[in-house]
């Protein structure tokens, strides 16, 4: 039975202080007579729409030593997420209706967050032949976002076909923009530091060339493009121009690209090895500006768990990626609120409503809406904390561990019930 709660004297995104009343799992305007409510003091907490992550690697099926749908769901709930999008680079790859339905069902079983699978664009992520996008779209998993993330759909003819094909299902192609021939043996951002360290460079143009091409293909096909983990100032500018021209493009940026720079590679600690690589402070500033002015639509975590042995090695042998679900809000608050550059309405858009719109999730990203079960996140903006390496995730490749952060998710309400309450995970939402 969905519970009845009063979240008393919570602060809304616009700064009003009010009681949020939940009955039968839904937000109501006033408390009904004869209904018993549990009152939770939310004084000083900001109530936000439950966060929606467009880019999560849950690793199941296939790589359960790194993460499972259940452990990733716990990490998501602790990060304030009520919906996450499971990337397709599992084993087997999520390139059939069977696999996406399996992942979706595992999400329901975990019961802490809505798990929306992303389908592969091409069979086995190999970039050779379209996967059965229609079957995945029409499956119970209702896939709308297709991505070969980890790999770029680099063949221009195949990318064009994918963009055309997904129009039939209201789909979108989420591109991992990386020209493979320009990034052979790439280990970190190309530039003087990579030269000094003797590490293979990953040039900005390898991202920008693919984005420029894909924007033109999107215009040609009249389709919809989403650009994953934008990392360079040049990419932001390309997307800004494309939006001005009316091209149907959206873009995401990761928390780490908003916060960290390539200098972290100087100690050769693979904790900071990630793809696309950490860039320069010029890029970080451009990404922040793009996020604030609407060029970039979404903060997406690219939460990428890896087992210890994949990082406890030399730089070149190490895996790319870092976890990020539980720290994304703190980074968002730092960039948008504590900087004085933006506001909670924008934070709600980039952490929740824009992602749910891109994915077509009508039950997510809705703020205090009466017609759907409540998906809400309550944050303590003044809470100072220092993440531990070990989080709800099964993996410890956490670059934020030991870093003092400000602002933390305190409660997460998924489908009208607490999935995370007073900094603790519920077994399932409502348990």
């Amino acid at each position, binding site marked *: 039975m969905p519970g009845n709660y009063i979240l008393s004297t919570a602060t809304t995104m616009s700064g009003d202080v009010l009681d949020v009343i939940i009955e039968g799992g839904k937000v109501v305007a006033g408390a009904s007579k004869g209904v018993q409510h549990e009152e939770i003091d939310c004084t000083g907490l900001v109530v936000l729409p439950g966060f929606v992550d467009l880019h999560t690697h849950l690793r199941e099926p296939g790589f359960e030593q790194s993460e499972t749908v259940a452990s990733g769901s716990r990490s998501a709930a602790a990060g304030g997420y009520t919906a996450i999008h499971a990337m397709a680079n599992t084993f087997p790859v999520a390139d059939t209706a069977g696999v996406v339905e399996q992942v979706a069902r595992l999400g329901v079983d975990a019961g802490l967050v809505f798990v929306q699978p992303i389908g592969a664009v091409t069979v086995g992520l190999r970039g050779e032949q379209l996967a059965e996008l229609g079957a995945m779209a029409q499956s119970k998993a209702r896939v709308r976002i297709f991505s070969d993330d980890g790999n770029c759909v680099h063949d221009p003819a195949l990318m064009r076909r994918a963009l055309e094909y997904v129009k039939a299902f209201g789909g979108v192609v989420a591109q991992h923009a990386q020209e493979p021939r320009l990034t052979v043996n790439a280990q970190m951002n190309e530039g003087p530091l990579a030269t*000094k360290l*003797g590490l293979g460079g990953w040039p900005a143009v390898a991202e920008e060339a693919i984005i420029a091409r894909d924007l033109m293909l999107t215009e040609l096909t009249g389709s919809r493009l989403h650009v994953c983990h934008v990392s360079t100032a040049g990419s932001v500018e390309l997307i800004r121009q494309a939006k001005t021209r009316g091209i149907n493009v959206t873009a995401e940026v990761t928390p780490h690209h908003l916060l960290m720079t390539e200098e972290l590679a100087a100690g050769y600690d693979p904790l900071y090895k990630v793809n696309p690589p950490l860039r320069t402070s010029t890029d970080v500033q451009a990404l922040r500006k793009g996020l604030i002015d609407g060029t970039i639509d979404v903060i997406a975590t690219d939460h990428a768990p890896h087992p210890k042995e994949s990082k406890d090695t*030399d730089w070149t042998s190490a895996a790319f990626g870092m976890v990020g679900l539980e720290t994304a809000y703190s980074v968002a608050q730092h960039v948008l609120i504590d900087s004085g550059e933006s506001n909670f309405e924008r934070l709600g858009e980039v952490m929740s409503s824009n992602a749910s719109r891109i994915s077509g999730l009508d039950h997510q990203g809705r703020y205090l809406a009466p017609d759907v079960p409540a998906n809400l996140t309550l944050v303590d903006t003044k809470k100072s904390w220092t993440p531990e390496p070990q989080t709800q995730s099964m993996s410890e490749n956490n670059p934020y561990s030991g870093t003092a952060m400000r602002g933390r998710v305190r409660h997460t309400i998924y489908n009208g019930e607490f999935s995370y309450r007073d900094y603790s995970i519920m077994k399932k939402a409502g348990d």
Partner: protein
Amino acid sequence: MRHLLSAADLDKDQAIRLLDLAEDMSDVNDREIKKLPTLRGKTVVNLFFEDSTRTRISFELAAKRLSADVINFAAKGSSISKGESLKDTAQTLEAMGADAIVLRHSSSGSAHRLAHTDWVGSAIVNAGDGSHEHPTQALLDAMTIRQGSSDNARGKDLSGIKVLIVGDLSHSRVARSNLILLTTLGAEVHVCGPATLAPASLVPAGQVHFLLDEAIKSVNPDVVMMLRVQQERMSASYFPTEREYARIWGLNKSRLALLGEHTQILHPGPMNRGLEIDAASADSKNSMVLNQVRNGVAVRMAVLFTLLSGEVN
């Protein structure tokens, strides 16, 4: 000094002291009994994940002349070439009693990583990590240049000396370590190579040259260091053919004539005769190649002595 990972670990005084110590060690090599008892009871492991017989032998001889026990561990080709990690291999060797690990590895930063993690407690000597550094090569080059520039080398730096490094700067650990160390010692270092292989950020503006003839004329170098050309650079289109490379960037008879009478020619070896250097240059009186090899043993003795003898440098 606990480790030698990068030429940047050495300030000018430390570098000069190491070179002076290497001169002392060199004297040992001229004795009838070429051995010092200094490191008796110490164990040096040469841990080579890449083939490099010359460097390995040089370190081996250096350790033996100091009376250390030496183990050579060639990771390539053994059961561990895939699967067992740098960490496990290094820990295994340390468990057998290694006091110093001399590491050659294809991954840039691997020596740094071995020294800065809690994997092992041994002294680490970087014997070449990927495209990053090869500090003992730079020390032996500096020793060679210093000897060739002065009758009594001890105590001196390299100020006033102009060095031209020619070849694949992008991928060369020899070039990186030399750029750092020679600059620390006061030399003026220029580089020359195809623009595909000569990143501008390596040296101050005006010290990158794309054509060897022009570089020789404008720099008038006291030292020309030719880097070895790797075959795979050609297949990756960094330059079109060996012929074209040799024509524009190779050291040959006619370019030898452009050099000063006392200009030293260095090459880290092994040489591709006919590619980056022709026989006339390699065998000329200006060629310091065998001095480099000789000094390599002395420099490595100095490094091992400094790291393992317990004396504060």
